[in-house]
């Protein structure tokens, strides 16, 4: 049974078809890439999978369960986490607090039980803090724990977003252009990071990226989108030589 399966997913916004007939299948422990020129519908695919948009047609299945139309937080709690193309950190919260928000479902605070520091809450909050601290250590952000998230340099912010997503204890991690704006050195470090966290946390990863070296270096399989349609899929070698893919990217970077 595939961990994630999209069945003929089509997403229309008014007159625009952003994604059409998307059929992605991801097995447990895979790292799969989703590439394509700008506007190909990649982020829309993410949005449909994570419940941000209800697909106009088709269904999304996660771990065998039909999750189409579930609320965003419900999908998140089932083990699907994501990062965003344009970093969406919580501006007024510290680095540690950002990560702790990822633990929200695990802590399950109540509007009265939390302020009153009831024992169950205290224990769960303590555990969450330990988890958050160790996650920060994982990416070298432990020294920034008390800093405001937005005060971090760009590269660290990206890492923070990833770690925040990890705090939700996902089975499937969706990364939306994690290497955007990174220089070659940083991209390389990111690749190592992705491989490392996948090992350590037994993750399955779906990755949108434009940095071809990252995609080819890390992904086992790749789907290629153009104008919402899947024009190719296969392993990196096959994709690199696929004439349709080359044509789609011609004129782009």
């Amino acid at each position, binding site marked *: 049974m595939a961990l994630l399966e999209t069945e003929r997913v089509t997403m229309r*916004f*008014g007159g625009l078809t952003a994604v059409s007939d998307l059929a992605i299948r991801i097995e447990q422990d895979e790292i799969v890439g989703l590439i394509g020129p700008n506007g190909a519908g990649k*982020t829309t695919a993410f*949005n449909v999978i994570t419940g*941000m948009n209800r697909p106009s047609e088709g269904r999304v299945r996660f771990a065998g369960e039909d999750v189409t139309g579930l609320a965003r937080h419900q999908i998140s709690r089932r083990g699907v986490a994501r990062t*965003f193309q344009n970093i969406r950190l919580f501006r007024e919260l510290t680095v540690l607090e950002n990560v702790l928000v990822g633990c929200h479902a695990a802590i399950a605070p109540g509007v009265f039980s939390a302020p009153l520091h009831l024992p169950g809450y205290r224990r769960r909050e303590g555990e969450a803090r330990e988890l958050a601290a160790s996650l920060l250590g994982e990416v070298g952000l432990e020294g920034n724990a008390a800093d405001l998230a937005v005060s971090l340099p760009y590269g660290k912010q990206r890492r923070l977003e990833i770690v925040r997503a990890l705090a939700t204890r996902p089975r499937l991690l969706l990364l939306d252009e994690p290497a955007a704006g990174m220089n070659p050195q940083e991209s390389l470090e990111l690749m190592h990071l992705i491989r490392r966290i996948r090992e350590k946390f037994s993750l399955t990863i779906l990755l949108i990226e434009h940095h071809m070296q990252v995609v080819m270096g890390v992904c086992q399989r790749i789907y290629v989108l153009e104008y919402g349609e899947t024009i190719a899929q296969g392993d990196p070698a096959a994709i690199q030589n696929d004439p349709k893919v080359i044509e789609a990217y011609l004129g782009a970077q």
Partner: protein
Amino acid sequence: MTLPLFLQHLTNALSLGSLYALIAIGYTMVYGILRLINFAHGDVFMLGAYLAFYSVATFLLPWWAALLLAILVTAAFGVVLERVAYRPLRDSPRISVMISAIGASFLIENVGIVLFGGRPKGVSVPAVLDVKLALGGVSVMSVSLVIPVLTFLVLAVLVWIVQRTRTGMAMRAVSTDLDAARLQAIDVNRVISFTFGAGSLLAALGGIMWSYKYPQLNPLMGTMPGLKCFIAAVIGGIGSISGAVLGGFLLGAIELLTVAFLPTLSGYRDAFAFVLLILVLLVKPSGLLGGTQVEKV
């Protein structure tokens, strides 16, 4: 309910609706471009009425000159208002601009109280508008007929501007995507100033006409109509000029006809608009003539 009585109510509804429409247009234009609820719009309406009043009472201008002067000065005031209270906050969170708008509204109202005094002032309606006409059994003040005609004229001019002129095209561009418009070398600031000026001009016109129909001025006269007209704009589809007109007429009609047919509810008259608003926001937030809006992630 006899036919003449019904027609009477209908004419009233028509003129009230036109007044609402005139004011609602200003709201919708500003919101369409800036996504800002200009809370001070209703108070601009009040200013126009007072300016015309003082032009006649103190400066002894003939009513048509007073009207012209008042709407032009108020238009200028609208432009200044935008410059001072809204432009500095254009890149700030929307809550800040809204607070500034609320502050501006209260400021204008209270300056009005200070300058004009809180006691209502009686307006002398120009003779030509004060004529009682008898049309088919219905007795109607000429002003009630002039208002809808005027509104449609204004609307025609406005639609022509928006559809046929470069300024209008610029307005449409800015309201679709402000940043993209800027990239197209459209002078966004000028467009916004023009929008505020035009909207304020219409509000002033509405205010003066209002004062001819309900000849009592007080500094808070703009609060309730202002709110209701924003609601009218929302009902019709915020951002759409025809929507504002439709909403204005709809609201005026519902208000007056409900009171006419169900007089026991007249105390709740002001609440109708709000109930309507909430219904619309729940069922079709984009309004009757609005399209669906999507937020980009």
